[in-house]
């Protein structure tokens, strides 16, 4: 009897959450479609966002089994060369986040809570494995969080391949260990007997190289003020929902089209925790406050992958080694210890683009970014640049407060 009541209650909660997620998504999509800078070239990306950003949907589109990823350290080229589709699991839904909150620590990462909430609802049929780099504590505890939330049984029952990430990038032994990890990852991908040939690896590198070129073009357009940050974030946000070739073609088509941003404002750089669809609260608030994001270093946006793999040695070992180094040394995730050159990335992207302010987005519970924001603030202020730190979550309750702070920030930039 009690179990029956609980099940019925759960069903009601699930139904309500599901409706809320649909409504969140529809609201954002409607807002995007009604923007003055909407063009038909964005339809592909809107459709991807609309038709479900799940591993199952990506499997249907690509015809390939997905490898579910968190974070950006697993080499996409290697996964693709093995005949899988790399899918970075993410969710920006506040309703999904709330659904998963019960039983989890109050300050657990909202992004992971949202992913867990969405997984609870979907009752995922995908048997595809997870590949998790040991970045932050939340990612390390992710299988346990899935188990606590009844998405999976015991943590051991979840098929996970761990990539043990050396947190010191500059040390030779760290790099050696990481290459070893990537070779172990290759073994994992080929454990069912499939082979990764050098030609496939080279082709895969070329495919992602083209995707990166398209991404750089879009990023340049945004920097020149011809592409709104909102659209840029949508495009990068759906990168994993389809094959990289299809995404690249659509991105190139969009880059070649005539685009005029709907709004123009004071130019700012956006740094910090990732922003995932449909949680575009921060980008919308920035626009409302008259701030225009012309560059960012979010791992959900400009840093969805580290760039094209460049190497002097085109042999299999050369490609593997270059790939592993690109995804390790080329990553400026705050979970690294020797991450001092991250500030150079921010300053380099800001240079010559005529902007003087940095907006640092911290998701409540995202401790690495939270901690790093203080050091970055000091370094930026030492250089005479403006800085604002926005600590928020997926809920919309603090929007008014954030808006007031952002408008004041815009004033300080203008006065400068």
């Amino acid at each position, binding site marked *: 009897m009690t179990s029956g009541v609980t099940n019925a209650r759960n069903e009601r909660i699930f139904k309500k959450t599901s409706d809320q997620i649909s409504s969140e998504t529809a609201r954002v999509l409607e807002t995007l479609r009604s923007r003055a800078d909407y063009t038909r070239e964005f339809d592909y990306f809107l459709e991807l966002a609309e038709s479900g950003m799940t591993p199952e949907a990506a499997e249907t589109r690509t015809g390939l089994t997905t490898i579910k990823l968190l974070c950006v350290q697993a080499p996409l080229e290697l996964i693709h060369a093995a005949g899988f589709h790399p899918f970075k699991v993410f969710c920006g839904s506040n309703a999904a986040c709330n659904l998963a909150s019960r039983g989890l620590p109050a300050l657990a990462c909202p992004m992971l809570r949202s992913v867990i909430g969405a997984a609870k609802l979907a009752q995922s049929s995908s048997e595809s494995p997870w590949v998790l780099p040991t970045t932050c504590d939340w990612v390390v505890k992710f299988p346990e969080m899935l188990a606590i939330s009844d998405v999976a049984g015991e943590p051991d029952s979840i098929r996970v391949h761990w990539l043990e990430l050396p947190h010191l*990038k*500059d040390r030779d032994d760290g790099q050696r260990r990481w290459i070893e990890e990537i070779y172990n990852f290759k073994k994992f991908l080929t454990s069912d007997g499939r082979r990764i040939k*050098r030609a496939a690896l080279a082709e895969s590198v070329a495919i992602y*190289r*083209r995707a*990166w*070129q398209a991404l*750089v*073009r879009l*990023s*340049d357009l945004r920097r020149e003020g011809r592409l709104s940050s909102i659209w840029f974030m949508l495009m990068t946000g759906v990168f994993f929902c389809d094959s990289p070739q299809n995404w690249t073609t659509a991105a190139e088509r969009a880059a070649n089209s005539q685009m005029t941003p709907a709004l123009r404002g004071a130019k700012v750089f956006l740094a910090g925790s990732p922003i995932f669809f449909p949680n575009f609260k921060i980008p919308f608030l920035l626009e409302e406050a008259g701030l225009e994001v012309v560059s960012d270093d979010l791992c959900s946006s400009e840093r969805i992958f*580290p*760039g*094209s793999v*460049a*190497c*002097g*040695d*085109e*042999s*299999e*070992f*050369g490609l593997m*080694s*270059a790939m592993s*180094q*690109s995804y390790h*040394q*080329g990553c*400026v995730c705050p979970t690294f210890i020797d991450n001092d*050159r*991250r500030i*150079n*990335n921010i*300053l*380099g*992207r800001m*240079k*010559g683009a005529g902007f003087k302010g940095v907006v640092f987005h911290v998701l409540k519970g995202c401790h690495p970014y939270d901690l790093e924001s203080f050091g970055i603030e000091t370094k930026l202020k030492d250089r005479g640049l403006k800085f604002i730190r926005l600590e928020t979550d997926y809920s919309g309750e603090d929007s008014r407060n954030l808006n007031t702070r952002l408008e004041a920030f815009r004033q300080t930039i203008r006065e400068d």
Partner: protein
Amino acid sequence: MKVRNIRSVTQHLGFLILMYGGRFGVRLGSALPCFACPFVPGCGGYCYLMGLQGYIGFGMGALTGVGLMTALSWFALFVFLVAMLGKLWCGWICPFGLVQDWLSALRGKLGVRERQITQRMKRRMAMVKYGLLAYIAILPPLATLGFLHEDFYLPFCDICPGKSLLPLFAGETRYLALNFDNGVSLGFSIALLVITGIMLVGMFFKDRFFCIFCPLLALIHILKPLTALRLFKLPEACTGCGTCRRVCPMDIEDVYRQRTSPDVQTDECLDCAKCAESCPADGAIGLKFLKFKLFLSSRSYAADSRKKS
């Protein structure tokens, strides 16, 4: 036009002019800071190392007069050429450098892995080039003064793999044969064959393997304070992605490691600028002539230039 295409064009032009130019009346003298081998029939100019060996011997023997003046004038020309183009001679013009690049390209086509040399080992191997400079400076005068057999007059040329390999492109094979004129000649010809064999294997498995030992590179580096053309880095723009290290044919780590000074022109650097081309950080690595920046790295350039690589 992309930097790598310009480099390829200058390398091939350099090869044609320096290897075959003499057949069309091109005479660029004896002070070229690259491996323009005088043993190639119809070459367009001579490598300065040959002149250096000859004039060191001649200068020590004559000490005064026209010989010494000629030696000094060729040296002055060599210094001028180095001051103008620096190590561009190595990365963009040297015919023997291009031959090494062809071997690397062949290795790439065959999918053979490039062998890694540890930094420690490479530092030790790099000292050989300074040893060879000392060898060039000491032996010819001793031969001129009669302390050594006269076949020690060009001791470096006699063991230089350029002498055995470059003439092959002009159909000249005799430097691959043993020379039985006397014991010294035979010793040198055996040494040349052994070194050529080692270098061929080394150059196939490792980019620019010979350049690690090249005494001309050492000599050009000694003149570094005079060179107008330099590779530089803005450490504050570097994001530490390590691309520069991966694409460097000499596996130089200093560009990546440098965090304070703009000077990244190490003794092994060939000024090929591959690091600057591939660097995805805006303005982090560049090539300059005096104060004029010839090239600066940028993300857009790096993305675009890798299209067909």
